[in-house]
């Protein structure tokens, strides 16, 4: 077998895996802290991509400022989302949170279809056609940027969770809400921050992928279901488990896609998830006792 082909597949899989990880980590963080399954999570990824498209194409803003603007904007949207909708769900049922966020997803997705139509758009940037060439392996620069952004976001999230007071509070709430309240942690403030970070990561993923894939209103929809599978495989509420499962899935999909029919690629995440649920229901890396 051709080694450079294999390396190419591995690299591509790594990029996709890192993007999966950005979305799944946010989803897992929100689940860990709020016990809410956010069905609308993929729509924020889509909105991030659409926003990036408009910022670069219509307002001619550069690549890096666009990424920063979209990420900050998404985090702000997350903050508002928590205050407007999610805060009223505290202590409420699992099904209710799913239905509420599903409603939000329907509004955002179909609203975007109505305003933006389903025609895929390509976001062009001066870097679109630049490649880094190492021997036989060709890597578009924008993919490398996406990979770098994902890794940077992962490190930042790790530092927040494990090196700051507020991160400690977040882990505390997700381990034991009552005990966290007893030692004076305000679960509202922590939840707000968790949603802002989660949605921010999702927006970042959208902005980073916009120049690589076509931008269209249905892009978040298929993504979010894969992200559900990832967080189940990694263990609900376990952020590092989600990251590992996401990267593994991205790489496996890419490798399988290189050699086997596509049905295996799209079905992989769901089949793996059902198997995990049957064999090891707490997920590969344990249930949400660790963020």
């Amino acid at each position, binding site marked *: 077998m051709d080694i450079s082909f294999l390396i190419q597949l591995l690299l591509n899989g790594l990029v996709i895996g890192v993007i999966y990880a950005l979305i799944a980590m946010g989803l897992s963080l929100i689940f860990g802290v709020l016990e809410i*399954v956010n069905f609308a999570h993929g729509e924020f990824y889509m909105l991030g991509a659409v926003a990036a498209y408009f910022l670069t194409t219509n307002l001619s803003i550069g690549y890096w400022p666009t990424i920063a603007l979209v990420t900050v904007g998404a985090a702000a949207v997350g903050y508002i989302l928590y205050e407007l*909708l999610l805060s*009223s769900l505290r202590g409420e049922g*699992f*099904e*209710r949170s*799913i*239905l*509420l966020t*599903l*409603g*939000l*997803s*329907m*509004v*955002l*997705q*179909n*609203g975007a*279809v*109505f305003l933006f139509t389903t025609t895929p758009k390509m976001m062009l940037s001066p870097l679109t056609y630049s490649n880094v060439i190492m021997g036989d392996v060709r890597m578009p620069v924008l993919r490398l940027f996406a990979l770098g952004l994902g890794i940077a976001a992962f490190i930042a999230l790790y530092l927040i969770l494990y090196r700051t007071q507020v991160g400690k509070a977040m882990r505390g709430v997700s381990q034991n809400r009552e005990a966290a309240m007893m030692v004076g942690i305000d679960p509202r403030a922590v939840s707000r921050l968790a949603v802002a970070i989660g949605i921010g990561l999702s927006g970042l993923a959208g902005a980073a992928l916009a120049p690589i894939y076509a931008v269209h209103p249905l892009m978040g*929809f298929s993504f979010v*279901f894969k992200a*559900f*599978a990832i967080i*189940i495989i990694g263990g609900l509420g376990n952020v590092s488990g989600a990251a590992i499962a996401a990267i593994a899935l991205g790489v496996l999909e890419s490798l399988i896609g290189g050699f086997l*029919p*596509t*049905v295996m690629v*799209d*079905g992989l995440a*769901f*089949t793996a*998830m*059902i198997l995990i*649920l*049957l064999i090891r*229901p707490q997920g590969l890396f344990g249930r949400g006792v660790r963020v």
Partner: protein
Amino acid sequence: MNNPLMSGRMRATLVVVGLVLLFAVPSFTRNEYVLALGVSFATFAVLSGGLNLVYGYAGLLSFAQVGFFGVGAYAAALLVTDANWPVWAGALAGAVLAALMGLGVGYSSLRLSRHAFAIVTLSFALLCMIVSRDWVSLTRGAMGIPGLAVPQFSFPGGLSWRLNKPADFYYLLLGLAVACQAVIYAVVTSRIGRALKAVKMNEPLAQSQGINPLRYKLMAVTLSAFMTGLMGGFFVFYLTIVDPSIFDFYYTETMLIMVILGGAGSFWGVLFSSAILTLLPDMLRFTTDLRMVLYGFILILAMLVFPGGIGGWFERRRIERWRKVPYGGRGTP
């Protein structure tokens, strides 16, 4: 199940009158648009009724209903087209297959939790769509199976019924819907329905009364899958084509809205909201995107301020009335 608005006798009369009127529609009008609305109502009434049985009564949020619907549709279409089965046998086989899948999905996930059930059913529906699109040698892929035969039912004694007019499908699907609703009504008003509600409200308590929660939940899921699959098996001949869009999430969203707006666990509420939500948006000529935006807003609002739906509102009023009655007019008991 008592409705505060009317007595049982009045309701029975109303149901009979309503049914006679519904079945008389094709004698008054040949308007295909009216008949198409009727077919759509009959189909969605079964879909939302099946979901209501699982979510409203058993408390299990199922995203798999559209999967059962599509599995029934695909199985019937393939058996009739490729194996020359009669339509009724194909649809019945589709329903049995859907019921078996419901049993499998339910059994594998319900031993864990109702959270796992929600997520596994969602994956099941997505897997169905992927398989129908990519297993080309069986399902013919994204192009689907067009030009399905006109169904014909042969009865003993040489009689036969060929469904070549829109009114024929109207009668068939409406009749099927009435039969399914009757089964659902019989189940939810029986001991089984009360056991399901008890399990939903307090599972450990129900268990301590000798109710086996898993068995009742599986029964609800399987029965609902059977009816949904059966409806899919017949509906597909009305469409005359089956392709992967039969698994579209749109169906899931629509039946969820019907159940939530009508009130999960309320038989008449869900039936009523199915009628309203089939007729109203169509008459208002909304585009599909705008309709789904509207549905999304309804879902958000319902979850924030109106979680019991229409049925829940009546239920609350009924309980308030009970509370008000005796105690010799002396305040709290």
